[in-house]
C-alpha cells in the first residue's frame, strides 16, 4: 500500500505477524519431567484496521479460541509480533496492559460460564466500570450505566434485575456484549458468540455487531466455525486448520474462489437451506 510522502498514516489497530503459541501437552507428560510443548498456533499473520472486520474460521482443534486468548494476552504467544496501534503488546507493562484490555475486549463463547451465575445482570454489566472506577458520582451502583448498556444491545432495562439463568441463550450473549462495551473498546474479539443459539438469536447478534460497527466504528474479530455467518459479517477472512493459516484474504474473494482444498471442503460441507438431492453424496473435489 503506497501513500503520498509526508502523509501521516495511522497505524492499523492490530497487526499480527508470525504469531506462534505452544502449550504444554499434559497428555504426553512423562512422570518426572516437564511436559513437552505442543504447537497450537503457528505463523499467524493478519492486519485489522480500525472499524474493520476479520472472520476467523476453524473447526475444533484449529486453535481459534487460543488465538482469541493470544490476542488479549491471556495466553502470551511465544513467537511473533503483536502490535496494537503500532506498539508492541508483548512489551506492555501492567498499566499498559490494563489499558490495552479495555480497548480490546473479549466476549466469550459460553454465556453460562461467562457470566457470574450469582450476580444480577446489571451488576455484571457495570462491573468493568466499577472495577476501573469509571462510574459517575450520581451513579454509585452502576444501575444507570447498566440500563444504558442493556438498551444499546437491545435488551430491556428491567432485565438488569435478573440472574443469568433467567435469560435465554441469546439474551445472555447480548449481556456479555453489553459488558464488553462498558469500557468503550476499539475492538471486540467475539469467540464463538453465536454457537448454540437459534437461527433467530444468531441473526440478532450478527445484526447487533453490524450496528456497533456502523455506529461506533468498532473493529471486530469474529471467531466462528460457521462460514455462512462469517460471510455475512466480515470483510476479511482467515481460515485456520490445526493452528496453521490455510487461507487469508478478502471474504468475497475467498468464498467465490477458494484456493485451498480445505476451504473447498468446508464450503461443500455446508448445507444451504435449499433443496438439493445430490448434495449428500457429492464429495468435494480435492
Amino acid at each position, binding site marked *: 500500500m503506497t501513500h503520498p510522502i509526508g502523509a501521516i498514516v495511522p497505524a492499523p489497530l492490530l497487526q499480527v505477524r508470525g504469531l506462534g503459541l505452544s502449550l504444554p501437552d499434559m497428555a504426553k507428560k512423562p512422570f518426572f519431567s516437564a511436559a513437552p510443548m505442543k504447537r497450537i498456533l503457528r505463523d499467524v499473520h493478519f492486519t485489522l484496521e480500525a472499524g474493520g472486520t476479520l472472520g476467523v474460521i476453524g*473447526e*475444533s482443534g484449529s486453535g481459534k479460541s487460543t488465538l482469541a486468548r493470544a490476542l488479549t494476552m491471556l495466553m502470551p504467544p511465544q513467537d511473533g509480533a503483536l502490535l496494537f496501534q503500532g506498539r508492541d503488546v508483548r512489551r506492555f507493562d501492567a498499566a499498559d496492559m490494563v489499558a490495552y484490555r479495555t480497548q480490546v475486549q473479549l466476549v466469550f463463547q459460553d454465556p453460562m460460564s461467562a457470566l457470574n451465575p450469582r450476580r444480577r445482570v446489571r451488576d455484571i454489566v457495570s462491573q468493568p466500570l466499577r472495577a476501573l472506577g469509571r462510574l459517575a458520582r450520581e451513579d454509585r451502583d452502576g444501575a444507570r450505566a447498566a440500563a444504558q448498556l442493556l438498551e444499546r444491545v437491545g435488551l430491556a432495562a428491567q432485565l438488569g434485575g435478573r440472574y443469568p439463568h433467567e435469560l*435465554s*441463550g441469546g439474551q445472555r450473549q447480548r449481556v456479555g456484549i453489553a459488558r464488553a462495551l462498558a469500557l468503550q473498546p476499539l475492538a471486540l474479539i467475539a469467540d464463538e458468540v453465536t454457537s*448454540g443459539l*437459534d*437461527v*433467530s*438469536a*444468531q*441473526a*440478532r447478534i*450478527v*445484526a447487533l455487531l453490524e450496528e456497533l460497527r456502523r455506529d461506533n466504528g468498532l473493529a471486530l474479530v469474529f471467531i466462528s*466455525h*460457521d*462460514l*455462512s*455467518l*462469517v*460471510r*455475512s459479517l466480515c470483510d476479511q477472512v482467515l481460515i485456520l486448520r490445526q493452528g496453521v493459516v490455510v487461507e487469508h484474504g478478502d471474504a*468475497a474473494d475467498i*468464498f467465490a474462489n477458494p484456493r485451498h482444498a480445505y476451504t473447498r*471442503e*468446508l*464450503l*461443500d*460441507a*455446508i*448445507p*444451504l*437451506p*435449499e*433443496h*438439493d438431492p445430490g*448434495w*449428500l*453424496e457429492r464429495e468435494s473435489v480435492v
Partner: protein
Amino acid sequence: MTDGTVATVDAIDAIAAVAPVLQIDDLHVEIRQSGRVTPILRGVNLSVSAGRIHALVGESGGGKSMVAKAATGLLPESAVTTRGRITLDGQDVTRWDEPRWRTLRGRTVSMVLQDPLTALNPVRRIGAQMADVLRLHQGLRGGAVEAENLRLLEQVQVRDPTQVLRQYPHQLSGGMRQRVVIAMAWACRPRLIICDEPTTALDVTVQKQVLRLIHKLAGEGQGVLMVTHDLGVVAKLCHSLSVIHGGRILESGSVPEVFAQPQHAYTRALLAATPRFDRPGHTLVPVDDGLIEQLDAEARAYDRSQGVLA
C-alpha cells in the same frame, strides 16, 4: 385458513400404502406445576413414514423437544396429555405407563441426542455399552455380541471397529462418538429413530458424514424424525418437514415444496434469518418481534378457545 395453520398435503405420504411408524394426532400437552397450567403442545399433527426422514423445525422453546419426548414416553412428571393420540408402529401409546414404554424403547423407537459425550457412559468401554443394548433387546450372548458389535460399527462406517470397541468415549472424536450413538440407536432396527439436534455439536465436515449416515439408515427402512433448528440440514437431508412454534404446527409439507414456496410468515422469517455464504448481498434478518407477538397472541387465543386456564 381459519385457525392460522397452513398445511400442504404431503403427496409422498399420501401415496405411501404403509401406515406411518409415528402418527401424532391433535396432541395437546400441558405442564401442571405448583398450581399453574402451561400448555406446551397445542394440537400437534405429525407423521413419519418408514424409510422417510421428517424434520421438526423450530426454535428453542417452540415445543420440538417435547414432541420428541412424547414420542418416547419421556415427558416429565408434570406433563399431562389432555387430548390427542400418539400411535407408534400401530400401537396407541398415548397413555402408556413406564413399564410398557420400556418394552418399546430401544426396540421400536430409539433416540440419538445432541451431545454424544453425555449420551455415553464415560467409565465404560464402547464395546460394553453396545453389548448392553444387544443383550437386553436381542438376547444375544457371548461371541454373537462381539460379532454384531463389529457389524454395527462397520455399518456406521467406523474404520477400525475392533479398536473402537475397546476404547472409552473420551478417547474418541465427537464425530466418532456420534457414530457409536447412532450404531446403538440402530442396533435393534427400531421402526423409528428420533434424532434431536444430532449434528449441532459437530464440525461441519463431520456433520456431512453423519447426515449421510442417517440418510443411509432411512434407506434401510427406518423412519426418522429429525428435530433441528438448522434449515440447511432440513433442506439437504429430509423429505418432509413440520414447522413448530409455541407448540403449534404452523406449516408442514414436503421439503421441495416448502422451501420453494414457504406459505407461513414464520417459515419465511426463519429462512430470512438463515445465513447463506453463497449470497453476498443477503442480510440476515432476525425474526420480527411483531411476528412473534402475533404468534404468541394466536397461541393464547387458542388456549382460551380450548378453555385452558393458563
